[in-house]
């Protein structure tokens, strides 16, 4: 177990380092990229620009700048170029919003997938089964931003069942909080439910045909008991792994676009604005943040996998 953890930690650090270098490098490649001038303002004279340049260290060689930026990031002092805000503060303020978006959506899709997948496995070939097949393949074909825009148009503008974008904090009013998030949750969950149900269904069917299940039935357990206790437990593993990776990439992808369309002040929106402004510090922090989650979740799903199946050993 310790070897597993150390290996994973080591590769995580490498990955974060590589990510930060790549992001930093991408922006240095841009011609005319001069954050000092952008910060100083349009009518700044050469003197003011030089002052800003010195203050932020833009006149130093690239690797020194990189080092300074990384130092600022890890001491939590890094400032973004557009609004002069502390990036780490912004991330910690905005992270709860993104969590509010992503976690319930994930729970929704997993629960729905398990339920629907189980039902369709038990009634293979039936209407639900075929419906899910269609849903799965359609779900993989629609980009999140389009679904989000359609939902917004249909249910918020046209039918006015839901509010027109915006976020309401959880603590002040849970009902409003949920009300504002229903459409974003649906946008994210809808695309994955079909696929995940199909995965569960196929694995469940695989397991159902195995000897030990037949034995359990023969022993007199009801179909439901057999299903839940034996079949489900063994078929959860693949979707757990899938989920881990999906959830992590969700933070860096679908969440970004969904937050933009629904105007939710989460980290995705912050990153999207930063990219538009070529504002390197938030982009670096965002990329590292997401990469970190990818590694974390892939490690976590390995652990869960091992827990669910004692035959698997964590070999790192």
């Amino acid at each position, binding site marked *: 177990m310790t070897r597993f953890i150390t290996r994973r930690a080591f590769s995580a650090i490498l990955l974060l380092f590589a990510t930060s270098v790549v992001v930093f490098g991408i922006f240095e490649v841009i011609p*005319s990229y001069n954050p000092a001038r952008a910060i100083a303002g349009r*009518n700044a004279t050469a003197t003011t620009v030089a002052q800003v340049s010195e203050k932020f260290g833009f006149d130093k060689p690239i690797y020194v700048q990189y080092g300074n930026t990384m130092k600022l990031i890890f001491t939590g002092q890094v400032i973004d170029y557009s609004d002069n805000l502390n990036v780490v503060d912004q991330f910690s303020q905005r992270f709860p919003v993104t969590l509010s978006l992503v976690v319930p959506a994930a729970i929704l899709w997993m629960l729905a997938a398990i339920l629907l997948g189980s039902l369709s496995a038990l009634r293979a070939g039936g209407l639900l089964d075929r419906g899910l097949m269609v849903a799965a393949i359609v779900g993989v074909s629609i980009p999140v931003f389009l679904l989000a825009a359609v939902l917004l148009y249909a249910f918020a503008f046209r039918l006015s069942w839901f509010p027109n974008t915006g976020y309401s904090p959880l603590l002040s009013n849970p009902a409003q909080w949920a009300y504002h998030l229903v459409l974003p949750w649906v946008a994210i969950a809808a695309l994955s439910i079909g696929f995940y149900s199909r995965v569960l269904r196929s694995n469940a069917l695989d397991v159902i045909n195995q000897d030990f299940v037949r034995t359990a039935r023969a022993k007199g357990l009801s179909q439901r008991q057999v299903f839940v206790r034996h079949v489900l437990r063994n078929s959860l593993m693949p979707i757990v792994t899938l989920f881990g990776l999906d959830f992590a990439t969700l933070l860096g992808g679908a969440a970004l676009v969904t937050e933009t369309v629904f*105007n939710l002040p989460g980290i995705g929106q912050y990153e999207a604005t930063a990219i538009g402004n070529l504002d390197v510090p938030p982009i670096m922090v965002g990329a590292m943040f997401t990469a970190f989650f990818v590694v974390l979740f892939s490690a976590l799903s390995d652990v869960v996998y091992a827990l669910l199946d004692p035959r698997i050993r964590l070999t790192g």
Partner: protein
Amino acid sequence: MKRSIRPLGALLLCGTVVALAACSSGSSSSGSTGAGSSASGQAGGTITIAAGTAPLSADQGLDFTTQGTELYSVVNTPLLTFARGVQGVGGTKIIPALAESLPTVSNGGKTYTFTLRPGLHYSNGAPIKASDETYALERDIKIPWQAASFVSAYIQGGTAYANGKAKTISGITTDDATGKIVVNLVAPFSPIVDIFALSGTAPVPQTTPMKNLANTGTIGDGPYMWSSITPNETYTLVKNPKFDVPGLPRGHANKIVFQVNSNVTADAEEVLNNQADVFDPGDTVPASLLQQVQTQANGRYQPIPTNSTYYFWFGVNQKPFNNLYARQAVLAALDLRALSRLDSGFLTEDCHLIPPGIIGNSPPSSCPFHNPDGAPNMTLAKQLMQKSGMIGQPVTVYGEERSPRRQWLDYYTSVLNSLGFKATEKVVNSSVYFTTIGAPSLKPQTGWGDWVQDFPNPWDFMQLFAGNAGSSLNYGYVNDNHYNTTLNTLFQSAPETVASQWSALDKYAVSQAYYAAFGHEEFPKFYSDRLNFNAGVMSVEYQTDLTSLELK
């Protein structure tokens, strides 16, 4: 030019934000909403402003954005100020504020002497001293103020202080006992009076730290003072009971709350439904709501032209725009109505550079090639193209990616193509746009540009095409002797005295087609029905003049 921070135009579902500088009402439209014609409204109360963009900082020593100016100009009163309570060109008049009178000019225009009124106090009760002014200007350079170059470039000793070679700005001497403030300039520069009317130059107590105080703002002697600030969210002002500058408006509301919500559609809906009082003019009413606002809010909504100009510039040193006829053909072919529609109609079409709210403006009817409100003159354009011999020339056209600038770029490129050029557009990200086109190595052929006033002096706009302006302002490297000499002569005098000459210079440049200006941005004056619409003033300098807002 005043900066404004804008959200990512391409992504926002709800409307685009084009935030620009202070405004005036056009000379033609100012008649209808005369300011100061207040039916007796009530004093007191709380007024909320729904804004889509926050100022960069509440600290006037850093910020030079339009949103910021709107707010701290009622907190930090400078030595001079622009007249309040007046909509339109009248709002460009400079009057004394903390100073007893306008400065005396001596030494061939290089020395300006102010006298501080005696007995003035900050909102915390501390007396205002003459040396506080020097401190404030040094603070501007240290932080630095976004317009710090106004101080360092024009005032003697400013550059040395900026470079750390001097402990203080040597060109300013003050005497706390008499209240005298003597400012020595590097060279005669009459717009310096405008600069001393900017809030960034307002004196501050010498205990104020020389860094950006975004969370608290600073202390000043204005009709209002800061009550609380949550940066990028809420900015709250309350009446300053210790305001003691004579002759300046005190304001009506007791409390003003500037609430930031980047969802501009929500902001507009709040004002429409009277849940908020003022739609911040720095934002644009989203296309999806425009119709509703125009009908439902009839009588409390009016677009008002501002002191900003959009234009296309030409690289005059290389083909094809080194040829006069080629440039003139563009001016003849541009349909300004099309450009206006791309801006959702919020454009006052005009071929001149100087906006209608600045002295020296010219009436749009004097545009030489075609009426800016009407169809372009394609016949003339085609003839000019023939004369120029530039048909078939390849042109790269530069523009920004934000809406509507990208759409303007698309349109402009298609016009160039219809004239016979082989035009391709190059979209540049807004964060690097001006550094890209201003890079000395680029020598671009043509592209989009804009200018928002720093202060309402015609020189502020016309200087863009001076031969010595540098590539970061004069993207086309225009260098015309007549233009340069006239500019240098005119700016020595107060603008009112040479207004017609400024106008003539503008017309000259248009006839030479050094720029293809196409209009001035209009800002929405959009209030809830709790406010007295006619009493509220959209000021040239201050946008929503907070001292003019009053409840019915």
